[in-house]
């Protein structure tokens, strides 16, 4: 494989992992209208949860159970679901924005734990030399990466198909009913709070699941991989792809991640060293502009073609 092809494989693994995060977020925002402002927190819980479950034992540390990878990933996803339950139960019966505030808060708290709770998370160093699933089966790293790409692609496809089914199932129709006319849904005997909670927790479970896949591929966790900017990046992927549209979510993940890595590359090549941090700021500004401008001028996304969330516009 040439260097470029190898890089492409690497790129696609990350982008498709993020696409699962974006689909989880899409379930929350696109299909339920819930604003999760702490995506990175749930992603980190999934990643750290997996790392603790599969990692080798460390002296004086919690975890290092050395469990098989699939169990680790599912455990990480379950922990993300638990975190979602904590904020969901507190806020979903309240004004919608309270969920946004609480998710923002839990993400900050999770970041603090990742950074400071050394016995569990390894602190600033993170947890390293985690076993990568089935690594020894393959003769070269390139082959292994191809294999992992296949796994992630299949899982992304499974998530895509499952979500497409879910939103057209009776449950999905109730979801739509709750979003479009809460009072009517309530009068049909549906409990909007419960439906929203289900959607929120399911979305966060997917986000946490993707966190586990991420760890399986890179083989370590470090707080640097879970900075608040990731939340914005994931959101940009969703908004650009068009909320309410799962195919757009995947395309948005690849497109925005591509834009991000390429602009990063460009900055590191073109800008002199003393301006690199400004370059980083410009990169982030692009993400912010992408979000705000798409919301203003292309509310259905740049790629999306399907109807987005519709709800009675209030009188003005």
């Amino acid at each position, binding site marked *: 494989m040439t260097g470029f092809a190898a890089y492409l494989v690497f790129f696609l693994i990350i982008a498709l992992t993020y696409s699962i995060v974006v689909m989880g977020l899409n379930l929350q*925002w696109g299909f339920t*209208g*819930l*604003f999760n*402002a702490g995506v990175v927190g749930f992603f980190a819980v999934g990643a750290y949860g997996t790392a603790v479950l599969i990692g080798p034992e460390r002296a004086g540390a919690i975890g290092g159970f050395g469990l098989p990878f699939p169990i680790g990933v599912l455990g990480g996803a379950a922990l993300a679901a638990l975190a979602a339950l*904590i*904020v969901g*139960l*507190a*806020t979903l*019966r*309240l*004004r*919608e*924005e*309270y969920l*946004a*505030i*609480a998710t*923002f*808060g*839990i993400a*900050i*708290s999770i970041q*603090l*734990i990742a*950074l*400071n709770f050394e016995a569990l998370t390894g602190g600033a160093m993170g947890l390293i030399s985690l076993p990568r699933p089935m690594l020894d089966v393959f003769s070269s790293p390139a082959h292994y990466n191809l294999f992992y790409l296949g796994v992630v692609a299949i899982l992304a496809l499974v998530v895509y198909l499952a979500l497409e089914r879910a939103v057209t199932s009776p449950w999905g129709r109730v979801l739509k009913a709750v979003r479009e006319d809460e009072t009517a849904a309530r009068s049909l005997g549906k409990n909007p709070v419960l439906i929203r909670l289900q959607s929120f927790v399911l979305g966060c479970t997917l986000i946490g699941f993707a966190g586990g896949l991420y760890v399986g591929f890179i083989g370590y966790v470090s707080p640097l991989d879970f900075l*608040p900017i990731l939340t*914005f990046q994931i*959101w940009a992927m969703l908004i650009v792809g068009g909320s309410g549209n799962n195919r757009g979510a995947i395309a948005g993940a690849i497109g925005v991640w591509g834009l991000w890595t390429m602009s990063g590359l460009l900055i590191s090549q073109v800008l002199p060293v003393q301006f690199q*941090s*400004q370059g980083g*700021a*410009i990169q*982030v*500004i692009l*993400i*912010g*502009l992408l*979000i*705000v401008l798409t*919301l*203003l001028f292309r*509310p259905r996304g740049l790629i999306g073609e399907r109807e*987005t*969330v*519709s*709800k*009675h*516009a*209030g009188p*003005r």
Partner: protein
Amino acid sequence: MLQALADGILTGSIIALGAIGLTLTMGILRFANFAHAEMITWGAYMALGALALMGPFMAPLGALSFGLPLIIAMVIAAVLTSLLALMIDHLVFRPLHGRPNDMTIVFSSFGVSLLVRMVVLLIFGGSAQYYSNTLQIAVPVAPGLRILPDQLFVLGFTIVTVISLHFFLQRTRLGLAMRALAENPTLARVNGIDTRVVIRWTWVIGASLAAVAGVLYGLTVQLRPEIGFHLLLPLFAAVIIGGVGNVFGAVVGGLIVGLAESLSVFIIPPSYKLAVPFIILLIVLYVRPTGIFGSAHHAGAK
């Protein structure tokens, strides 16, 4: 212990100033503005810029680390922050108002917050800065309690600001219109109030308070582009503790959050301090989501 109490009140009073602006905008404009905390950052840095342009033309006042220039810079910062808020409202929030999904506007404020923070980073750089290089000597006020003159100024200034705002809201027509708009926008319009004008003033007041909070905060800590980001959660916690739309509640909420943060070091390692507002927030949401002073009206319940 005494020192921690004093520090908590100091931080709390700054959180309170920011929270007042946030609670006003949340009550009147009816959305949680994630960009509010970035106005604190913006205000603090605008004052820094104004100071740099003016040059040190006057000696510090008394024992304080600053003089008249900083006061002037604070006014300039308030004006520039108000302009920023009005511009954002005009370009982003107003066009999104009344869009199908109500949360779109909250989300857009999330995006705007990132933009403001990055613009500050781009202009001023990421390293810590100070308004003044004057070294201050803490004055012992009681056994085990030392306070910087600047800190006393911050406290006094906050108290004066809160009292003035109270009189403004209670005694002036604009203040009355703001309270009316917070309760029932349609009825306010039926009463002949041009809500667009009131909304504009709400932005100006909220942004000016944010700028003042930013400058006062900058007097007591180092300036960094992340100061607003780190204040966002404390601000929201203060607003929700006090009940959305309740100015007095925001002040009490701010003090509670500030005190809880500084007293938390006796229970948990200081590195978790930033999570304290989140814990308080969760407790309030579980136990009394309308906040301490919240009525059923601005009920957290929908």
